[in-house]
């Protein structure tokens, strides 16, 4: 896929996600040829689609497909996925979210009995891109707000404490993006999911703070992204768990792998 085709696809996806979410988005993406994209160009399709889910705030049950695809199984049904703290969940297909089941009330996540072990690398990469997009969405909301709102006769954006929080957020997101772009093996995917989870949580903390009271209301979009970040972080291993796992791994190996080479 060349750059023009990719831009075109991104455009189409963005428009689709602006008007449909949940089961409706699942159907729309099926029509757009999601299954073929995943089969033929996963290295383009997964970052693009999942990141846009984050940026637009839409959701779909595509994680099932990514995990099934990596496992070499047909893209049907929903399978139990490990969640932080030893839980398992199922991401329902074609269903609406049951009320109160998860902190993010839009996601059709249900606690399930433990399932079979599944390969996790591709799913972690996909969720990492999603978390990155969610983080970028929060940063964009915060940026707009601090430029528009004035206090003490100045825009909030002119206060250094505010600027540094947003700078911190951008650094975390850009760092995470670099790890995602470089994630080729399972350890790379684990680290990238950890970096992306951490970056999204950093974005949530700083963006919430600079939005003040308005960011705490249900009318403002921020809370939806904060909820999404919290819930997606736990799926297939939280930033905290994955970081600990990476620590145990390098301790036992007595050496830190250099995963990217010039």
């Amino acid at each position, binding site marked *: 896929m060349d750059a023009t085709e990719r831009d075109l696809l991104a455009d189409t996806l963005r428009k689709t996600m602006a008007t449909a979410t949940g089961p409706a988005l699942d159907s729309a993406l099926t029509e757009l040829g999601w299954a073929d994209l995943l089969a033929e160009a996963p290295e383009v399709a997964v970052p693009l689609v999942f990141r846009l889910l984050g940026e637009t705030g839409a959701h779909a049950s595509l994680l099932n497909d990514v995990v099934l695809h990596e496992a070499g199984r047909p893209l049907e049904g929903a399978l139990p996925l490990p969640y932080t703290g030893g839980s398992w969940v199922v991401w329902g297909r074609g269903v609406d979210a049951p009320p109160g089941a998860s902190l993010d009330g839009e996601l059709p996540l249900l606690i399930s009995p433990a399932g079979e072990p599944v390969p996790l690398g591709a799913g972690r990469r996909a969720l990492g891109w999603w978390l990155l997009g969610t983080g970028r969405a929060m940063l964009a909301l915060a*940026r707009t707000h*601090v*430029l528009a709102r004035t206090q003490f006769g100045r*825009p909030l*954006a*002119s*206060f*250094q404490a505010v*600027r*540094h929080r*947003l*700078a*911190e957020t*951008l*650094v975390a997101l*850009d*760092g*995470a993006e*670099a*790890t995602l*772009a*470089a994630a080729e093996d399972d350890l790379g995917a684990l*680290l990238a999911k*950890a*970096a992306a989870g*951490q970056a999204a949580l950093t974005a949530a903390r700083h963006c919430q703070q600079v939005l003040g009271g308005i960011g705490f209301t249900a009318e403002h979009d921020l809370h939806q992204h904060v909820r999404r970040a919290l819930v997606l972080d736990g799926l297939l291993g939280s930033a*905290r768990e*994955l*970081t*600990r*796992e*990476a*620590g*145990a791994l*390098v*301790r036992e*190996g*007595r*050496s*830190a792998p*250099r*995963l*990217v080479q*010039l």
Partner: protein
Amino acid sequence: MNVAEFRADLRRWLDTNDLSPGLDDSLDAQVAQLARVRRALYGAGWMRYGWPAGVRGLGGPAVLRAVLGEEVATRGLAEPGIYSMVEVLAPTMISYARPELAAEMVPRLLGGREQWCQGFSEPGSGSDLASLTTRAVPRDDGDWVVTGQKVWTSLAQYAARCVLLTRTAPGHAGITAFFVDMDTPGITVRPLRTMHGVDEFAEVFLDEVVVPGDRMLGRPGDGWQLAMDLLPHERSTCFWHRIAHLYTRLDHLLEQTPAPDSARDDDALGAAFLALHTVRCRSHATQRRLAEGGRLGPETSVDKILLATAEQQLFDTVRDLLPGVLELTETPWRSEYLYSRAATIYGGTAEIQRNIVARRLLDLGRE
């Protein structure tokens, strides 16, 4: 020459040519070792790859210098901070010195025959570099007379030459750079004690120092641009060297860490590893961009923040996981830990980097 080939040949050569440092870790010994390593690498050609023919380089992409520095750092052949100084000094000469001057001087630096220093900061001008006041006044014969003071000038006490920023007119456009011989009458160097015990920097006093007009770098007023043009070099090759060095420190910690006391130790090790991995991935992308002909700009402040943060986090982890070691035993960890505290100060402080990110990358307007 392609990168993989270069690396393989270089490794083979280093395996059979032992350049390991001796036991003396004084600064004198470090500087002597650096000169030895440069001489050997230059003599065998390695140090000449990635540099243009105009300064007697052997050409090839700049990334070869990053690969060389990574090998040097990974094998612990030279102190990485001072090893990397050529990465800012030589490109400055290549871009701004008269071609004959660059051709004459740069090989002396690369070949380990001379050390050079960079005289930018002054007692009254650190973060606010553009406020510097060391004056250069033209004489009728075309020479310039320089008077003022520089501070925190790394390796000034060993340096034969200095890339010096001076003021020739008001404002950013009134800063002019010179390439000054450190043995010129009127220059006094007073080494400063540092907190980590390696007295790497000095004060430099300039009292009516006469500098020939043909030692100006660029034209009058180019000094600020010269200082800005350093950043892409510092933030590509130098950073890659430093990251390689920090991985060796993490490995060293892993060799020394006993079975963990608690899962919290794994949390700390994992976080230190993740921070290093993150900056390595970022730096990798930055160098790829440079190799594809991209211009590096304010986005490299992100690399700088990630690196300084990772460095301090790593040494904080050393202190936590080897309790009492750096406080109570004479180990290199002590000096390395202390030196890591400077990572958020030199090369533009942590706050200045965040100011740049806010202004230039997030486009938040003025403070």
